[in-house]
């Protein structure tokens, strides 16, 4: 029994290692992915292309514009013209945002009347638009406060010192500077591992089916469990090696801290990889061709990443989809990854995630073993 499994493991390693393309795809793309994600995946909004239409040409309007310009959030170009010009710029994709200060802005402020500022946003990317709008709000409020204080100072210097203000005292835990990369790099480790393991295993049985070795294996006395273990163990080891490489990039290059225990991270990773292996092997036993396996695994990986909380918070999803996320092993693994890398949590808090992944792995691996029949019907 052991000799059979061992020989299977050796054979799989030889096959993976001898193929230069597989060897390359095990090392280079994951590193590229983690680097690209570390830099590119960010919610920060900077340098939003913004056109300012200052039709007031007053000291006040210039003051407001300079506040926008110096914030760093906007890349401002001064424009002149009317609403049609705004349409044109947005349609061409030259700007995301237009701020229009109408004539009489300063006059209204000086007369203590409400002055309005027109803001036109390209809402295609609703996230960027919302964040930019938030910054605009902040800057105008600040401007308004400063203006009021200034005014109060002039008419009642004593009273102005007694205007109370609520100050925010921000203490972000686990990610002091609120850097997006600290959020995304551990998540990327999970999604890269999932994609790698899927592509390796989804093809592994169906390929043997196509080259005819599966039929040959069926006429040997091998047992389905031995076969599945022989297919699981090598890829489990390869995936752990993969985890090591990309974690090193995360820690050394992106300076993601590893605050929790390495043993816990390893244990969680093993369970997660086993689950993905199970689903990959299941797809492989259900497919007749490698193309089929590829399409089906794509239809698993894509929603699994979307529903995992990799980029979109699960708590914001509709309840039905939130339920669906419990079927997603990446959901549990991302919690474990972020908890061990950033928070340094222990098993007593993470055990529900471990249970989730263990159940998933057990179900998919036994389904794959049950599906692997030694008959050709």
């Amino acid at each position, binding site marked *: 029994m052991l*000799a*059979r499994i*061992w*020989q*299977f493991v050796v*054979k799989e390693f*030889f*096959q993976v290692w*001898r*193929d230069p393309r597989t060897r390359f795809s095990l090392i280079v793309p994951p590193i590229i992915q983690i680097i690209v994600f570390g830099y590119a995946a960010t919610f920060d909004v900077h340098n939003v292309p913004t056109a300012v239409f200052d039709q007031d040409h007053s000291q006040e309007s210039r003051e407001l514009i300079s506040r926008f310009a110096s914030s760093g959030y906007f890349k401002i170009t001064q424009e002149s013209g009317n609403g049609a010009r705004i349409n044109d710029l947005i349609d061409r994709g030259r700007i995301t945002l237009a701020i229009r200060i109408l004539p009489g802005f300063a006059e209204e402020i000086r007369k203590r009347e409400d002055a309005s500022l027109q803001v036109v946003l390209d809402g295609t990317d609703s996230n960027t638009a919302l964040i930019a709008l938030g910054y605009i709000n902040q800057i105008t409020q600040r401007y308004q406060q400063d203006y009021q204080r200034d005014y109060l100072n002039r008419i009642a210097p004593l009273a102005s010192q007694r205007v109370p203000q609520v100050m925010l005292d921000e203490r972000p835990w686990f990610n002091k500077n609120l850097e997006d990369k600290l959020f995304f790099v551990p998540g990327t480790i999970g999604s890269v591992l999932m994609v790698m393991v899927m592509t390796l295993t989804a093809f592994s049985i169906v390929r*043997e089916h196509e*080259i*005819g*070795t*599966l*039929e*040959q*294996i*069926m*006429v*040997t*006395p*091998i047992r389905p469990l031995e076969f599945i273990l022989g297919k699981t163990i090598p890829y489990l080891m390869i995936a752990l090696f993969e985890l090591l490489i990309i974690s090193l990039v995360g820690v050394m290059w992106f300076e993601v801290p590893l605050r929790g225990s390495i043993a816990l991270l390893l244990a969680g990773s093993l369970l997660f990889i086993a689950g993905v292996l199970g689903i990959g092997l299941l797809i492989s036993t259900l497919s007749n061709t490698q193309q089929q396996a590829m399409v089906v695994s794509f239809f698993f990986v894509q929603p699994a990443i979307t529903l995992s909380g990799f980029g979109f918070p699960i708590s914001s999803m509709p309840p039905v989809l939130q339920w669906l996320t419990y079927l997603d092993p990446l959901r549990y693994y991302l919690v474990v990854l972020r908890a061990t890398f950033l928070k340094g949590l222990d098993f007593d808090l993470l055990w529900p995630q471990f249970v989730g992944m263990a159940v998933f792995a057990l179900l998919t691996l036994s389904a794959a073993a049950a599906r692997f029949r*030694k*008959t*050709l*019907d």
Partner: protein
Amino acid sequence: MPDESWAVVVEGLVKDFPPVRAVDHLSFRVSAGEIFGLVGPDGAGKTTTMRVLAGVMAPDEGSAVVCGCDVVRDPEAVKQHISYMPQRFGLYEDLTVSENIRFYADLFGISRRQREQAAARLLAACGMSEFSGRLAGKLSGGMKQKLGLVCALIHTPRLLLLDEPTNGVDPLSRREFWAMLYELAAQGVTIVNSTAYLDEAERCHRVALMHRGRLLFCDQPQRLKQRLPGAVIAVVSPIAARLREELAHADGVHSVLLIGDALHLFVDDAARRIPQISRALDAKGLFYDEVVRITPTIEDLFVNAVTAQEPH
């Protein structure tokens, strides 16, 4: 009780692939040490029969006992004793010759010493000793087939199931391959071999002719020839194909088969029909080299049997 003198006992085997009945109440027996040929065109049900015997396909009806094991009830038990080589043996092209051998040997739980001895002997027997380090993908078609046979024999099976083993193999390799089969049979290994080539069937000790899942008949190749009702006459002519039309409906001709530049006519009585056919061709001014009586080949036999079963 399983009878040890029979390596294979098949009775009333049926396998449906709706809407087709691939194997239709098939019964035959193969005795130990025999080279048995399952002969028939594509779609005759040979591969399905082989797969049932190998224990990788469950029949819908009937029984099959292989090496004393009931493959219908317990398909796993038989696997230690047999070896099945499909049309294309499943080799790992990215593993070397010796790695392939080792893989299959370990799946059968062969000890290292046994494996090394058997591998050396088998590789030497098929002239492949110096290729043991070569990747299987870099071997020629004939060598791949021989490597397949080596892998199939590494656990010294009692029964070897070969499904069209010489398909697409060059004539020289084919001869070597058969030499190995005779050698094995001499050592007591039973061989069930399927083929669509009738010339290959004549090398078997006994053949079963199959057509559309049914057994037409089963006997020694020579005996089958004797069984043919009437006789076969050959009309040799460079325009044999054109003569076919002329002769198909002549008196006393059952059926006509075109083989190379000759027409094989199945007739009731050779002595009477040869002059009759010569005269008919002369009368129409159709050219021919000769009209002679010949010993029927299995191919003749097969075609005659098939046409006899299905009168058009």
